[in-house]
């Protein structure tokens, strides 16, 4: 197997909490608390979890949109976490981001043409006469926008079209990696599918590596080859998409899947919904040992005292859990998994 495109090792991001006249640090929000994973060439890796689990922060650290507290991110073997100046700019050409909100991520005063062409301006590319306009119009055509709308402003487009503008901008520099942070959650159902299909087609045609962040587990399953589940700044389970959805091992993953409303009344009726009590604990004061033990129905004494290692479990999932779910427990809570077991 070829070298992974991205290698993340022990990545940590703590946001200091300051208080008092001297702004002394009294604690830290442990947004990302030591995550390690690889992203392989050409794959789609999903990052899922509840709000505040650190999935967006992890993505921003990979793109170096913020500086990590510690740890390493290697892109094609070169360190990103500490890169500076020209080297960082050069690296960033290879990685782009698509944002959640197509209304706030586009400058309302700029034409669509200059928004999509901005990466060229930043990197001083396509400077020839009319070259940039041609390239931008080609991109607009690729993502299904009318190239004649080059001179229009973002407000003249619907939500779905704006998200296409965001995709076109991300494609401009022919990046190797695209990070899409909740790219469809602001869109209507019928428009969501258009954007998802577009992303998938582009990825297949161009062999782009995609990190796909979403809270909607059915969308993630549709898009991703592998999925990492995050909780309180940790990766608690990582598996091939098929394995994860057929037999989640970490009770947290099981609860997430059980909570997804199934668009099928018969399956819904057969389901014993696993409801997690309470809220996610504060990342400023996370539980000791297994971060999930305060809400876990299988938790025992050892979960409060010993941090479980992220290691292979039955079926090939990698999970951090002392008492992984059995197949029987999975089927009871997630009847849709029955259709997936091979």
């Amino acid at each position: 197997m070829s070298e992974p495109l991205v290698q993340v090792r022990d990545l940590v991001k703590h946001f200091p909490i300051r208080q008092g006249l001297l702004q002394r640090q009294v604690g830290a929000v442990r947004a990302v608390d030591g995550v390690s994973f690889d992203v392989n060439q050409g794959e789609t890796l999903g990052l899922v979890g509840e709000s505040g689990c650190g999935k967006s922060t992890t993505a921003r650290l990979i793109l170096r949109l913020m500086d990590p507290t510690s740890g390493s991110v290697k892109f094609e073997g070169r360190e990103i976490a500490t890169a500076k100046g020209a080297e960082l700019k050069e690296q960033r050409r290879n990685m782009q981001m698509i944002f959640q909100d197509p209304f706030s991520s586009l400058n309302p005063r700029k034409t669509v043409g200059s928004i999509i062409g901005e990466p060229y301006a930043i990197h001083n590319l396509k400077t020839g006469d009319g070259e940039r306009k041609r390239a931008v119009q080609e991109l607009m055509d690729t993502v299904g926008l009318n190239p004649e709308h080059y001179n229009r402003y973002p407000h003249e487009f619907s939500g779905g079209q704006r998200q296409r503008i965001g995709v076109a901008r991300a494609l401009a520099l022919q990046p190797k990696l695209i990070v899409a942070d909740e790219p469809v959650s602001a869109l209507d159902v019928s428009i969501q599918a258009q954007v998802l299909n577009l992303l998938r087609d582009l990825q297949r045609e161009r062999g782009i590596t995609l990190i796909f962040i979403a809270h909607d587990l059915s969308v993630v399953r549709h898009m991703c080859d592998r999925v990492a589940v995050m909780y309180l700044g940790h990766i608690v389970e990582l598996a091939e998409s098929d394995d994860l959805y057929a037999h989640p091992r970490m009770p947290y993953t099981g609860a997430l899947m059980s909570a997804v409303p199934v668009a099928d009344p018969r399956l819904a009726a057969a389901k014993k919904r696993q409801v997690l009590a309470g809220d996610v604990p504060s990342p400023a004061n996370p539980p000791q040992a297994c971060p999930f033990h305060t809400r876990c129905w299988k938790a025992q004494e050892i979960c409060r005292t010993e941090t479980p290692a992220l290691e292979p479990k039955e079926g090939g999932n990698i999970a951090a859990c002392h008492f992984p779910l059995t197949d029987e427990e999975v089927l009871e809570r997630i009847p849709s998994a029955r259709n997936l077991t091979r």
Partner: protein
Amino acid sequence: MSAAGHTPLLEVEDLRVYFETDDGLVKAVDGISYTVDRGQTLGIVGESGSGKSVSSLTVMGLTRARNARISGTVRFDGNELLGASDEDIRKIRGDDIAMIFQDPLSSLHPFYKVGGQIVEAVQAHRDVSKAQAYDRAVEMLGLVGIPEPRRAAESYPHEFSGGMRQRAMIAMALANDPRLLIADEPTTALDVTVQAQILELIERLQDEFDTAVVVITHDLGVVAEMADEIAVMYAGRIVEHADADTVFAAPEHPYTWGLLSSIPRLDAPRGEELVPIGGRPPSLINLPSGCHFHPRCPYVREAHRRVDPALEPVDGQADHQVACLLDSGTRKRLWGELQAGVAPEAARKDVIEEPEPTG
């Protein structure tokens, strides 16, 4: 569907809500009818701009814009609500009929403690002392699963997490044991785990108090889990109405097909193709001629651009209605093909080649 001699709890008949604007008449709701019985849940599904929220706000007497033109009938327990005096409406709203909204921050007052706000809601409708109302507030906060309800009652909304605020709002809505609960996107802003808690809560309360529920959402999963009956709205109208199993297993409107094939499923084989609906929802000022869905419908024929379909029973089944000009046999075949993976563009040809119905 109500049997003779039995009054449904809520009856909406030919409800229209138009707004006069400088750009023209916005037909937000254009003649919808439905009924909801005690203990039943009706799911209203649609995209943004389909009129699903405006119709329920109007039922609650909350469409108060000066430019609004409202007509039709809304009967609650046999009493007409449209045109009732503000005072009469206020007696019912928050008492017999309660509503929960998508955004709990905008329905809880930021300056007042949560407990005090529930006390106010109780005292507005019940002749009880402040102490009794406060006990009720604490009881309700506990009932919706907020830990340490007595302390929570003394908190301000900003001290709560999103899920807790949503639960506090539900506690307030249910404090007077409403007979009808209207939930407008009750879980859209929440994480799935919190969403599951809220859905579970609404179901439990419904079982306990026989409350009727109208749930308005764009999420087909939510209605599949909650609703007994489903009305699919498009451009201000109901285009399909049936019990939940039928809507998912044997839908007859191409728009419903489009919604169902646009969502990825947790249990479908990976690599399934999503079939999006082309185009986007129409402007409610310049509605397309004929069938409002025709510009986005893959099975459109010439006549569909002229004729406006009525919501009619399918094959004489009174409880499955659809507004579509294709004949039922063709629709059943198309839905079968779609499920077998035939792309709508491929299926389209045969429909076009069928002879146009005469008359």
